[in-house]
């Protein structure tokens, strides 16, 4: 199968990136050392091509009411110029995808979906769009997305868009920005645990913007470090912490469900039941004594040698300089009386439960 290419494909190749197939897209995994790219985002400013992400637009006079019905959050309460993290669940309350929804106008929303789920989210939204006066359009293939992340992101981006008032552009806010012929949606969102921006723009403008951001000091960063950055920040990745066997409550994200909204939404009754009882397992953070990586699917073991959970994501954390992981742990595991280890290819490696996130930036 031929991989899809982003508008920046040739730039990545010219930079000597190690490329990888990510959800059918040819994407840069790393340009040099992924550890250096990770630390660069924590200390300075990294530049990511995220054009593989999906942008689905919902427009029409019922757009807000439709999204209140189709998603677990209350999108009708999101102000124009703001964005919200939310999810689309099925009737069983399990997660089809996690999303960021931007309110563009009163009756216009942009729903950003994970690359691996664009088709299913688009199909699901289209199927749920019965009796609402709105349209659902997938504009993913004509939209480029460039993220600028790190403590120097404001300094870099403000030089490209000098007319934008950055003191009014708060976390999870967005604005339309323009400079010369360039028009973008400039959002203060991200997936690294740092301050930064996600910039949505037309495909034809992607190369020019990328080059400008490089000229002002941003440095390319690949998907390998994006994964370790989000893991340190305790953020879920669909296919790992979230999937069709997982509900938002056991993932520690029950706060995204708006039970009080006026419309009955898909998954409500199942989720209400889960919220009233207790979950069988919960997402936890662990650190390991060893430098070995506890990879997705490895078992958590108690002191009696019984399996008490599974790793969802693991990495060697460049910021903490230790092996970290997220995992689902059985609710009955008693951290006071028991000891936890991870079965890494036949060896039980001692693990310690720690609160999430592993890393939080100083504000």
């Amino acid at each position, binding site marked *: 199968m031929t991989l899809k290419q982003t508008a920046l494909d040739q730039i990545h190749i010219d930079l000597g990136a190690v490329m990888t197939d990510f959800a059918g897209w040819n994407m840069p995994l790393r340009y040099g*050392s*992924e550890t250096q790219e990770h630390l660069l985002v924590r200390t300075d400013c990294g530049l990511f091509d995220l054009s593989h992400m999906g942008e689905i637009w919902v427009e029409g006079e019922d757009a807000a009411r439709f999204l209140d019905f189709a998603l677990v959050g209350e999108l009708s309460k999101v102000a124009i110029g703001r964005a919200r993290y939310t999810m689309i669940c099925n009737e069983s309350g399990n997660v089809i995808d996690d999303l960021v929804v931007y309110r563009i106008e009163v009756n216009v929303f942009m729903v950003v979906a994970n690359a691996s789920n664009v088709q299913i989210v688009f199909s699901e939204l289209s199927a749920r769009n019965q009796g609402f006066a709105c349209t659902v359009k997938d504009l993913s293939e004509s939209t480029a997305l460039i993220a600028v992340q790190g403590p120097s992101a404001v300094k870099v981006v403000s030089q490209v868009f000098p007319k934008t008032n950055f003191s009014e552009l708060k976390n999870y806010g967005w604005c339309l920005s323009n400079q010369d012929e360039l028009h973008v949606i400039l959002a203060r969102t991200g997936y690294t645990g740092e301050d930064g921006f996600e910039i949505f723009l037309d495909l034809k403008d992607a190369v020019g913007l990328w080059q400008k951001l490089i000229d002002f000091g941003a440095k390319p960063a690949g998907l*390998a470090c994006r994964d370790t950055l989000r893991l340190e920040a305790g953020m879920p990745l669909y296919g790992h912490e979230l999937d069709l066997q997982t509900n938002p409550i056991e993932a520690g994200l029950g706060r995204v469900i708006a039970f009080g909204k006026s419309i009955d939404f898909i998954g409500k009754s199942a989720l209400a039941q889960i919220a009233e009882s207790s979950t069988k397992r919960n997402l936890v953070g662990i650190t390991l004594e060893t430098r070995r*990586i506890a990879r997705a699917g490895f078992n958590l073991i108690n002191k009696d040698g019984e399996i008490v959970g599974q790793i969802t994501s693991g990495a*060697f954390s460049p910021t903490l300089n230790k092996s970290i992981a997220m995992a689902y742990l059985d609710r009955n595991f008693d951290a006071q009386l028991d000891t936890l280890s991870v079965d890494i290819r036949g060896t039980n490696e001692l693990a310690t439960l720690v609160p999430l996130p592993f890393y939080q930036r100083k504000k």
Partner: protein
Amino acid sequence: MSIPANLHYTADHEWMDTTTGVATVGITLFAADALGDVVYVKLPDLGSVVSAGMVCGELESTKSLSDLFAPASGEIVEINQAAIDDPALINKDPYGLGWLFKVSVTGTDKLLSASEYEAKIS
């Protein structure tokens, strides 16, 4: 990519500096680049005896896990604790500070010259 002319190579991307006496062993720059940043290295125990071609350790990076093969048979007489404590040395200096272990050589499988190894990876 520089491939030191004085070293001997295996098809599994290890190098060794001599085929007689005590040989120093490491992985090639090509292998280190392909792995990405190494975060964990497991080496054979000091005093253990390895045989050429057998798995004698592992190298783990962000995205992958690779077996380490012994390029020669013999007793392990020294291991590089610095590389265990800071595996980044293997990426930074695979032919120098990032060496892995020393083996008292009793035999080898077929080894490649620098030019043969270069032809293999290009």
